[in-house]
């Protein structure tokens, strides 16, 4: 006979309300873990889309996702000639803000050379860029449709959406759009005629407008990224970052603060959950001190009593946890950021909830163990 289950059945309303409240709290914890995983997955999609082995960037920098990088466009040809390099493609990255049909739209623009590495991984509708100018492939999370025109740049040049991708956003959750490298360079580096005239009047050299942010490199089989990167650094005086390292810069430096922020909130919520479980278990235990004394008097061991209390804590915690998972799963699609609930995180949080339940029952167990069987005989 499971005494814990029967006691909970006896206090069903109190148990149900507490479990729902706990479920909402733990649901937020699950959502936060899911938001972090979603942001991490989103952030890594763009650098992984072209499956590069190396990122060649401005000397002394760590790549376009960690800090600004600006290198000449001919860097791609220099790099292509390094032994072991199978393919290279010049790319730019820039965030732009525009408006479509009166609605503001923020896009992460990647410029690439069609036919070289750096473009969208797969297109789910339409086609890739086929012309040098004013075509765009956009992620469908932008809300753009095929054939729609998007004004970009200082003169609001209309870019036509010719293709759509799925699930391509940057680490901030902004949808990614691809344009030709020429267009991207124009968007990022072109100066307006008044500025150009002012520069000329001041006697300065014209600002370069054909720079790029990085060169993506794919290696021939059998070449180690670290070795080729060393050659590039030594002979071309550039920085070359292996893909794994580039990803780690993104996750460690860009996502880490989000992880800490969310981790802090999760710790607070788990602490609150512990207090709620402890409070409920303690009050349930206080309510049945006489019953505990009676059980002890008729021969129940401390182990039986402790089992009763710990099982109640576990039943409440585990019920609340799965309610939380269910809440979050049901609401995941309504969150503004992607919520990626991974079995690994669920398993980890489940373990944390078990530990929390054990901690929460300590106070009640202490009170119950101190109960003397003689208290059952007291009038």
């Amino acid at each position, binding site marked *: 006979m499971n005494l814990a289950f029967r006691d909970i059945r*006896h*206090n069903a309303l109190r148990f149900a309300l507490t479990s729902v409240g706990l479920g909402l709290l733990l649901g937020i914890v699950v959502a936060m873990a899911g938001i972090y995983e979603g942001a991490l997955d989103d952030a890594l999609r763009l650098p992984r889309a072209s499956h590069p082995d190396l990122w060649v960037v401005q000397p002394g920098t760590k790549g376009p996702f960690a800090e600004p990088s600006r290198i000449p466009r001919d860097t791609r040809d220099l790099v292509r000639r390094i032994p072991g390099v199978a393919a290279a493609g010049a790319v730019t990255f820039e965030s732009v803000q525009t408006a479509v049909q009166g609605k503001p739209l923020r896009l992460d623009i990647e410029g690439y050379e069609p036919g070289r590495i750096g473009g969208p991984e797969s297109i789910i509708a339409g086609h890739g860029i086929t012309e040098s100018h004013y075509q765009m492939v956009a992620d469908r999370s932008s809300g753009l449709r095929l054939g729609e025109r998007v004004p970009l740049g200082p003169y609001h040049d209309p870019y036509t959406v010719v293709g759509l991708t799925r699930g391509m956003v940057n680490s901030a959750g902004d949808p990614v759009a691809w344009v030709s490298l020429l267009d991207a360079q124009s968007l990022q580096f072109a100066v307006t005629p008044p500025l150009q005239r002012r520069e000329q009047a001041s006697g300065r050299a014209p600002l370069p407008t054909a720079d790029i942010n990085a060169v993506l490199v794919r290696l021939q089989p059998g070449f180690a990224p670290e070795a080729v990167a060393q050659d590039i650094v030594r002979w071309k005086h550039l920085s070359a970052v292996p893909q794994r390292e580039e990803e780690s810069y993104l996750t460690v430096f860009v996502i880490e603060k989000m992880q800490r922020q969310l981790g802090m909130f999760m710790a607070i919520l788990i602490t609150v959950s512990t207090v709620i479980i402890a409070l409920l278990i303690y009050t349930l235990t206080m309510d*049945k001190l006489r*019953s505990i004394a009676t059980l002890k008097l008729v021969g129940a061991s401390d182990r039986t009593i402790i089992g009763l209390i710990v099982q109640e804590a576990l039943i409440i915690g585990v019920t609340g946890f799965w309610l939380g998972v269910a809440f979050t799963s049901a609401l995941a699609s309504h969150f503004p950021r992607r919520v990626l609930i991974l079995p690994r995180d669920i398993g980890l949080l489940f373990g944390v909830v078990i530990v929390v339940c054990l901690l929460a029952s300590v106070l009640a167990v202490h009170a119950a163990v101190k109960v003397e069987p*003689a208290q059952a005989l007291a009038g």
Partner: protein
Amino acid sequence: MPASAEGPALIELRNISKHYGEGQTRVDALVGVTAAVYPGEIVGLLGPSGSGKTTLLNVIGCVIEPSEGWMMLDRERVYDAQWLRADLRRLRLEKIGFVFQTPNLLPFLNSTENVAAVMELMSVRPREARARALQLLNYLDVGHRGLSMPGQLSGGEAQRVAIARALANAPRIILADEPTAALDSQRAGVVMDLLRRVAIDRRAAIVVVTHDEKIFDRFDRVFHLRDGRLDATAAGGVK
């Protein structure tokens, strides 16, 4: 040995003393109590408040240890040189049934479960425990209330369930603390009839602590306690 009892004593108290505190604050709750209770016998334990009745019941019930003396419970020596404190719980579980002033039923278990819980503490399988619990409830004429929660029972029904629980471990010693105090005289009479039935059917020794004058005539013998001392004329039969 009284006429209604037969066989060796089930409870045999030898020079039991219990005191609290030391020096000037010392209080003697029990002083050299020696007595015996035999199978089939119902003994009343009477005395004014503070005379040591409950303390003696607690000592016999293996709830508190005496300061001096030892006893035999169903042929097992307790509180002597070989006695282990860890045995108290086992003794309570295996040898003693308790009936309280209030039924003290576990509020989250129904009547059958309240009785079966004690059997399960003795490792009886749940299904068998339920069947035996229901038999006991039927024996005490409350079988029809087997699925009722304690809050749904009348005072008399709850006390019958409590007696059934006291019998769940098939004890030969039953200790009752004011079992009729909360009942009217008719229901008190029914409870005493039930205890009598148990004493006869199961050859059990029953000790009842009471102030309830309406049941004084239901005892085979009466032990009077005054200031922790037992009236020697009633202690009877210890050799």
